[in-house]
């Protein structure tokens, strides 16, 4: 309580109801309370209404179905799964498949988007025109069409399994996917992992020391080779010392498909490339506007200080541009994640295909399944936003 209200309260110990009504603070609380009560009542009545209607229509309700055997197979899974597992596990499989597409898509779209965005601003006419053409074409195609084009493009141009395109290291490409040798790690691989961790810590330390030397003396020590040596050389040495603790399951031609190895399906490739190309066009525009938002004087000042072009971009322009870039970038990440639900159109087993598709139809519990699916997308969106806000707060230029 501020001193003034306290004084007023002292003067008039008993306040009438109208006083409360005219007091903005208590009026605010009352309003909020009313809204909250109405909201809770609304939610309750919708839930109650739904349950009753489902009962009246003879439709099963509840989440017990998640423990029942699913009975169907899924073509791609990051965790072990067979048709004897439960619907709950099928949900997890779908969720992980969605996450996989989202994460890979976001990373690739960011990289491509930044490259094209910067290319769009290039002094080179050809480069900037190509970037502009890309952006303008792609942005105006509906994502679903894009996916169809990529998917049927992929499976119609790639050869049949018998005529697979062969790459080095027992890698094959055909219209059933990209087949890679699958590494089978021996026990001794922990030795290599340990070396990797140690190398990483050492590299970190070398970098820190180099920074310190630069700040103190102005001399930039060369760190590339020592760092590479630690991060790559050390594990490689451990690998040799441990006696090559790995063997490979190599894909081989079977009657219909290649058998064995590790397969990346054409559905996954098409989905990720479709979504990536689509989102990258938007990210490119965001990057361009972000860079343009940094006043020209900054660049000139940096050059005048003797920084090289790359350094100007990396140390002066990008950090300032990021403030403008990150909020709309977050939006694009959310869009990509949500657009990944178009997967079912091209046969990729994402959450919507597996759970809101197959499981929903087998159990007929549309309400529960859709609620869970919506909850997943909501949480993914919120998590992405929270992370990006945190990232923004961290990299945003601290202005003095």
């Amino acid at each position: 309580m501020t001193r003034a209200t306290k004084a007023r309260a002292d003067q008039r110990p008993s306040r009438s109801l109208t006083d409360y009504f005219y007091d903005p603070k208590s009026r605010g609380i009352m309003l909020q309370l009313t809204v909250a009560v109405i909201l809770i009542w609304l939610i309750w009545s919708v839930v109650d209404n739904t349950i009753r209607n489902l009962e009246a229509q003879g439709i099963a309700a509840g989440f017990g179905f998640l423990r029942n055997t699913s009975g169907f197979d899924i073509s791609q899974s990051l965790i072990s799964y067979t048709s004897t597992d439960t619907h709950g596990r099928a949900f997890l499989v779908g969720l992980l498949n969605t996450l996989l597409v989202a994460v890979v898509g976001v990373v690739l779209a960011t990289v491509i988007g930044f490259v094209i965005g910067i290319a769009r601003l290039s002094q080179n006419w050809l480069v900037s025109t190509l970037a502009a053409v890309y952006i303008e074409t792609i942005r105006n195609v509906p994502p679903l069409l894009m996916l169809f084009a990529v998917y049927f493009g992929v499976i119609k141009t790639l050869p049949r399994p018998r005529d697979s395109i062969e790459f080095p290291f027992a890698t094959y490409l055909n219209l059933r996917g990209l087949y890679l040798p699958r590494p089978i790690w021996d026990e001794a691989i922990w030795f290599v992992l340990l070396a990797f961790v140690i190398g990483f810590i050492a590299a970190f330390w070398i970098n820190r020391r180099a920074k310190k030397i630069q700040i103190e003396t102005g001399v930039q020590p060369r760190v590339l080779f020592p760092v590479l040596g630690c991060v790559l050389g050390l594990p490689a040495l451990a690998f040799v010392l441990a006696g090559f603790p790995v063997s490979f399951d190599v894909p081989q031609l079977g009657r219909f498909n290649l058998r064995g190895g590790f397969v990346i399906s054409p559905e996954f490739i098409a989905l990720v490339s479709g979504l990536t190309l689509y989102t990258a066009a938007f990210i490119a525009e965001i990057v361009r506007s972000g860079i343009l938002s940094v006043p020209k004087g900054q660049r000139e000042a940096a050059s005048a200080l003797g920084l090289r072009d790359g350094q100007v971009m990396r140390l002066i322009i990008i950090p300032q541009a990021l403030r403008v870039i990150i909020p709309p970038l977050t939006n694009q990440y959310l869009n990509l994640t949500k657009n990944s639900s178009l997967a079912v159109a091209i046969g990729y087993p994402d959450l919507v295909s597996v759970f809101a598709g197959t499981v929903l139809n087998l159990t007929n519990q549309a309400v529960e399944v859709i609620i869970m699916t919506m909850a997943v997308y909501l949480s993914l969106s919120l998590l992405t936003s929270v992370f990006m806000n945190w990232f923004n707060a961290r990299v945003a230029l601290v202005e003095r």
Partner: protein
Amino acid sequence: MRNWVAAGLALVMSYGQQMELAAAQTSTLDTVKSRGQLQCGVSTGLAGFGAPNDAGVWQGLDVDICRAVASAVLKDADKIKFVPLTAKERFTALQSGEIDLLSRNTTWTMSRDTAAGLNFTGINYYDGQGFMVKKTLDVVSAKELSGASICVQTGTTTELNLADYFRSNKMEYNPVVFEKLSEALGAYNAGRCDAFTTDVSQLYSIRLTLGNANDHIVLPEIISKEPLGPVVRQGDPQWANIVRWTLFAMINAEELGVTQSNVDQMKNSKNPAIRRLLGVEGEYGVAMGVDKDWAYHIIKLVGNYGESFDRNVGAGSPLGIARGQNALWRDGGLQYAPPIR
């Protein structure tokens, strides 16, 4: 202020919902009559079973069920709004009241009949699941399919049968699951899958649409029972009766030799079973809310079961499917309708 508007809107919407559901629970017969139109869920395009012809008129064995019901209720086989539905959409459309009747190669299963708010009213086609492969693969039996990629449509019984079959035969496979038939077939045709699987009747129909039909063969193995039939919402026994007896009337008519062309003469028949069927004797339709000559209109406007079978999927159609299990019981098939009496 905004909060209030939002809350008010939500309130109105939630009541709207309540009313809509309440409407869905009133008599379907009254709804159809007052609307003057039957809303019938059919497939998105499966020649012989449910597909628009070149003139845009819906035709097929399943479509004829819609037409027969409209004839019985509205005395007009064309007062129908056909709603094309994918496998995934069909039950929601029925549950939510968007359609009055679903007649779209739908398999009668226990869970659908008991736990999904649906009622199956009969079997208009006895079917089973099979596989279609390209001839060039040199496969003659489904038992050889181990390691194959197989295209399927989601929301069907097909996915489960497939898993069961491969598991019990200890074979491996890679399912590629699509929401729409067109994309599943596109992928199969492009060579993404070695086989396409669904009910055999649909395989025959699809084979005709795949360019050169002779490039594809349907393998002999039948891996499941797929009794296909019309479906209505649970909780409206009168409407379920109308749909059930519409199919029975068509089957009985075939058995009694009543056809689209002779139905008018047959009204003078001495056979009491025919007289009851056509409403000359007794008032059998009235008890389920339609006129006593309900079946006369069905046969006059659509024909009997055998005629419908023949012109849509049988010998008189491009599909040329033999009657087989779908022959009348007295001809060694399974089609058997309880008597009208």
